[in-house]
């Protein structure tokens, strides 16, 4: 008699046999072994909006490369996991990518907090590590195979706000006093520290220098305090929710400063631009790419058209000017380096990446010794003639004028801010 236990055993054995047979039959005849690129990405959690947009851009790159026949004749595959914007998940993901999935190459997740926890693991394996929008991650590690695509420059902390203060210094009469206000978080504090240095070296007097908690909801007391300090220029370092709050409060209070902006994250995103509308006018803020004629690099328009098509209905930035071109470009750099060195030798790749100039959709990329861009291209752009409730206006030129650096300048400053 067949009892229940032996029946169950028989079922399991039969299942295992069937599975093994299936695996044998489905084994490919002899296709080229795919080239696996592994990474973690914030697909849920706080940075999900940006992470998903980056992934769309990366998938467009993969499609392009595979259409050309892959890299080294091998089709490109992605192996990626969601880190849920939790740094604690990152070490596990990268060790799995390298030890279990056996990926050939790794690239980073998005953002400083998600990049840093992967560093020791990648460093131990001595892999090239192209990274996406980390701020000064390599200052601590000094890893010579780290390459960061955000164009903040070799000294990102100070380069970030250099343009803002140089623009201020050029005005006549030169403004004298500065207010620096920053949210309590990793990026914003770094940006504020850089601004403090630039203000001092530019000969400005800091009359207000405070931080506020990330959870702040009412910004008018902060703006009133700045107003009371009588600052000529106001440098704000903030994340999207606070950026919106600060801009609205500045308009409500009728801030009389002559320059306002600096390092406000969020004003680069189409949804926030539409939401704030004319309140943005004359604000001078950092950006990395805007659709001005001076920044019309080969391929970027085509890339954005495809991104915008793919982004529809996915809840990500519909225009994708800020992060997606760079998410495409950091893989372009890797691709070009592999093709140039004709292999995956990590030492050769790194050596090549240090000396070559790469042609990408975000323009020519050249890395400094510490893996940051050799020269900063942190733009200072000024919002101009923004009309209410119209997102499409931001897809063309004329709304975000590049004032700095001079090489990319597309118009002149409107000064003072409040007029």
């Amino acid at each position, binding site marked *: 008699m067949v009892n229940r236990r032996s029946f169950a055993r028989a079922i399991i054995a039969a299942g295992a046999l069937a599975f093994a047979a299936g695996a044998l039959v489905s084994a490919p005849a002899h296709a080229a072994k795919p080239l696996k690129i592994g990474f973690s990405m914030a697909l849920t959690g706080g940075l999900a909006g940006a992470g998903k947009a980056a992934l769309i851009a990366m998938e467009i790159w993969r499609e392009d490369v595979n259409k050309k026949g892959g890299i080294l004749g091998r089709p490109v595959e992605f192996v990626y*996991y969601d880190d*849920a914007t939790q*740094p604690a998940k990152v*070490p596990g993901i990268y060790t799995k990518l390298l030890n279990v999935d056996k990926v050939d190459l790794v690239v980073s997740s998005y953002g400083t907090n998600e990049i840093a926890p992967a560093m020791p693991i990648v460093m131990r394996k001595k892999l090239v590590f192209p990274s996406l929008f980390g701020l000064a991650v390599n200052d601590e590690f000094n890893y010579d195979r780290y390459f960061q695509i955000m164009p903040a420059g070799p000294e990102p902390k100070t380069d970030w706000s250099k343009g803002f203060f140089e623009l201020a210094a050029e005005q006549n009469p030169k403004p004298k006093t500065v207010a620096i206000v920053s949210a309590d978080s990793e990026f914003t504090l770094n940006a504020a520290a850089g601004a403090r240095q630039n203000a001092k070296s530019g000969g400005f007097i800091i009359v207000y220098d405070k931080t506020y908690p990330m959870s702040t909801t009412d910004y008018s007391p902060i703006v009133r305090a700045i107003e009371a300090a009588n600052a000529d220029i106001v440098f704000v370092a903030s994340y999207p929710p606070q950026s919106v709050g600060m801009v609205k409060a500045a308009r409500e209070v009728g801030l009389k400063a002559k320059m306002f902006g600096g390092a406000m994250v969020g004003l680069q995103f189409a949804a926030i631009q539409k939401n704030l509308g004319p309140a943005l006018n004359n604000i001078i803020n950092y950006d990395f790419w805007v659709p001005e004629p001076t920044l019309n690099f080969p391929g970027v328009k085509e890339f954005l058209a495809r991104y915008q098509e793919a982004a529809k209905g996915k809840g990500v930035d519909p225009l994708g000017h800020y992060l997606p071109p760079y998410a495409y470009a950091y893989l372009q750099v890797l691709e070009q380096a592999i093709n140039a060195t004709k292999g995956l030798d990590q030492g050769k790749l790194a050596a090549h990446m240090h000396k070559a100039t790469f042609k990408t959709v975000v323009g020519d990329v050249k890395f400094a010794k510490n893996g940051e861009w050799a020269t900063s291209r942190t733009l200072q752009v000024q919002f101009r003639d923004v009309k209410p409730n119209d997102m499409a206006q931001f897809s063309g030129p004329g709304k975000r004028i590049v004032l700095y650096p001079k090489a990319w300048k597309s118009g002149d400053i409107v000064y003072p801010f409040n007029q």
Partner: protein
Amino acid sequence: MLKTRADKIFWAVLAAVFLGGLALTELVANEYYYTAIYAILQATIMAVAWNILGGFTGYVNFGSAAFFAIGAYTAVALDKWLGLPLPFLIAASAAVCGLMGLGVGYLTLRLKGVYFAIATLAMAIVLETFVTNWEYVGAARGVYILTPEKVPFFRSYIQLLFVVMLALTLGSIAISRALNSSRIGRGLAAIRDDEVAAECAGVPTLRLKLISTTVMGAMMGVAGAPYPFFVTFVDPLSAFNLFVAVNAIAMPMIGGTAHWIGPVIGALVIGGAQEAITVTISSELNVLVVGLMLVLFITLAPQGIVGLVQKWMKRRKR
């Protein structure tokens, strides 16, 4: 120590698990498994610790993340200040968080039930604000920890961390079991069932509650101390993550809060499932899985997995 047969079995299993862990580091080089098991072990300590106050004593603590984070930041600060080796950092974190637990213990004099739970949550927020503004440990910017590339006896640093964490976990389980099955444990159970009656019956309630909160705090600090070396980058947002606190509550609830083995089972089941889901489906689903299991267990099996097994064994005996 080895009074009964159960004691002998318990210590034999503990020793076997530890030796098994050591053997694993000799046999398996793949670092992923250590990383995954580390996360599960960390969750196990947190669950066991939470259960000492939440399960044995009946005081619900929502501030687990605060103990964990203070443990982590104590280690960061001392590592930066004196460069102490890991065992000292763990001991220091245990001491600091034990003291913090003692403070929380005095709170129980005035606060019970929901009010105690809210107070612990508030404590977590206060401490997070404090760390966010503590410049020495990187404040809101976060802090990097560089781990040595070569470690004696082990192939990599994560193996060392794994063995350390395994020893700490087994230690926590032993302490939890000793508490549960001792005079103290019976006193704690009396407090859980009816504090006033316990006091009237001569149970030294305050002293027992202070022991309970101190042990809980120290254990959570111990779980947090190696964390900076595991992630190599700590910022207040990730250290004070609400998810740490939610897991610490969900795991004992699902495993069963009345018995010392409950949180261990809960942590192994939930922690294992989470690690598997992260790499197979999606990280965000973790939260959903934990939430759903919590709801299911609280409504259908409030005694947890241990309760279900006990019921089943009783039925079989009949």
